[in-house]
């Protein structure tokens, strides 16, 4: 298949996606829209974590921290100044934050930028570590961000959090950001720089000896990953309309990690699929908590049952699919048409045999 044709197909697919988003925005209720929005934000988060963990092989647990930075930057920029005066009850908001104001798109971009700057600063020393040690160091960073957010009430309103954030995030934004994230990270992975990142994942010493600058490439990957985590944080704040430091605890990073591992390390397609399944199942399993009957046996109402079931499902996935749902598989138009062809051929040959 020619590259030109693939481009046309991709554009067509995007138009279809646009129509779907349009239909969803106009026909679905707020509850379902919330789930879809969260799914799209998780795609952005998952794909960005996959870049640093799945493709570069650097075990980073700092995503909640970058999200928090993004969420607070967006919040402080989009809240109208008069409203800011009202909600900072304990201590007044510090000076520059009282007057700054920016449109949503600028706020999102700055969210990413600040998260990326933070990643660059901590990445330089921390990315010398390997494996679990790196995981612990980045986890520590995320916790520091959270605790700092808790303790600077003049900026973040402390543990009270900020309420009444304008609900700017809709499917156009969340899906749009997800598409841009996938486009850029896929573009990176499929370039010479992406090959260098995967070489680092496969064998660090060999990568260095064939001339790949480890520090540059690791920090680059980490920074880009954090940029999109920051943007996702901004979307997240303007979806929930309320944020507080507790929203960015380790559980947040862990959820993203589940999405990435479940979908398959090093598979963008897998992450996209897993992000939707994750959010879908979290909601779909809700009735389990209410109590139900299996034949004559009555299961009582157990709060938290949903998470237990979810964990069990996760165990099954990891037991039978160690490399995640899709392993290293990646969607391509070529593979898609080969698959269709195969289906078609099987049908024809089975028809032939019945005659």
């Amino acid at each position, binding site marked *: 298949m020619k590259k030109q044709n693939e481009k046309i197909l991709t554009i067509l697919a995007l138009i279809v996606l646009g129509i779907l988003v349009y239909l969803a925005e106009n026909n679905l209720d707020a509850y379902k829209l919330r789930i879809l929005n969260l799914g799209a934000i998780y795609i952005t988060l998952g794909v960005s974590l996959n870049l640093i963990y799945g493709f570069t092989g650097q075990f980073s647990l700092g995503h909640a921290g970058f999200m928090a930075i993004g969420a607070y930057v967006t919040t402080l920029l989009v809240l109208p100044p008069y409203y800011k005066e009202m909600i900072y009850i304990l201590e007044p908001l510090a000076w520059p934050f009282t007057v700054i104001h920016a449109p949503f798109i600028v706020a999102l971009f700055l969210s990413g930028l600040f998260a990326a700057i933070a990643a660059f600063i901590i990445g330089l020393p921390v990315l010398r570590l390997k494996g679990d040690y790196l995981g612990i160091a980045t986890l520590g960073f995320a916790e520091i961000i959270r605790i700092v957010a808790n303790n600077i009430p003049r900026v973040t309103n402390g543990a009270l959090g900020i309420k009444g954030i304008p609900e700017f995030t809709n499917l156009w934004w969340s899906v749009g950001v997800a598409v841009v994230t996938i486009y850029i990270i896929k*573009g990176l992975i499929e370039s010479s720089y992406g090959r260098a990142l995967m070489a680092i994942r*496969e064998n660090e010493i060999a*990568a260095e*000896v064939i*001339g790949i600058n480890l520090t540059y490439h690791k920090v680059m990957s980490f920074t880009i990953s954090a940029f999109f985590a920051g943007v996702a944080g901004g979307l997240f704040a303007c979806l929930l309309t309320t944020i507080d430091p507790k929203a960015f605890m380790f559980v947040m990073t862990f959820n993203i990690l589940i999405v990435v591992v479940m979908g398959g390390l090093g598979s963008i397609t897998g992450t996209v699929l897993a992000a939707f399944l994750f959010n879908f199942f979290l909601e779909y399993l809700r009735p389990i908590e209410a109590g139900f009957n299996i034949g004559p046996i009555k299961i009582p109402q157990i709060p938290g049952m949903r998470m237990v079931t979810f964990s069990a499902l996760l165990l099954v996935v990891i037991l039978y699919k160690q490399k995640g749902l899709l392993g290293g598989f990646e969607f391509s138009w070529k593979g898609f048409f080969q698959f269709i062809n195969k289906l078609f051929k099987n049908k024809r040959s089975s028809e032939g045999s019945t005659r």
Partner: protein
Amino acid sequence: MELLNIDNITMKFGGLTAVNNFELKIIPGELIGLIGPNGAGKTTVFNMITGIYTPTINKIYFQDRDITGIKPDKITKVGIARTFQNMRLMDNLTVIDNVMIGFHLHLKSNLASAILKFPSYVREEESIYQKSMELLEKVGLEQFKLEKAGSLPYGQQRKLEIIRALATGPKLLLLDEPAAGMNPQETKELMGFIQNIQDDFNLTIFLIEHDMKVVMGICKRILVMDYGVTIAEGNPVEIQNNPEVIKAYLGVDANYA
């Protein structure tokens, strides 16, 4: 002018002296062999040349430039490439990707143009692909280009690692036991291959090898190490008749042998 000038380097790990006063001058176009019993310090010498270790005492010069303590990726950039004793391929990447990675250090396009696939980048990528295919054809691996590198037979993996090193455009190539694990037929092919790439790429080659047929067959000059010390140097005939060397390898006095 020497290509590589190793000036009496010593490498100590705590109380252990792995390499003691190692001295070597390599002239462009040479094919030099380094032999010695296990644990003699041969690979440590390679690791010092390629920047994985920094010599405890004294310095290494490449084309009169001090390269002591420079990071491995910078050393590759100035023109020293190597292979490893226990191959280090990117097992889960394809064969062609493994070679194309070798060209990354000379990439001119910046990150943005690579992500957004600007025409200048696409052209550069295309030329990297062509050059990688040429290298693969040289070793007859072109039909495996989309296989995972880890799934290739052992001998093919060795060849792949060598051409990946060639992709970085070296002046000096260090081969760490290229014939290890090869059968006699493969070893024979390898000897021809090493001589071919030396001519084709105008290379200087420095190799470690245990297979005496290879070393004696293609190297004009041989160094012998034992317990971190150079015990002999000379052409193959001199080395074969050197009592010190026989003693190191057989562990008995040459007179009794």
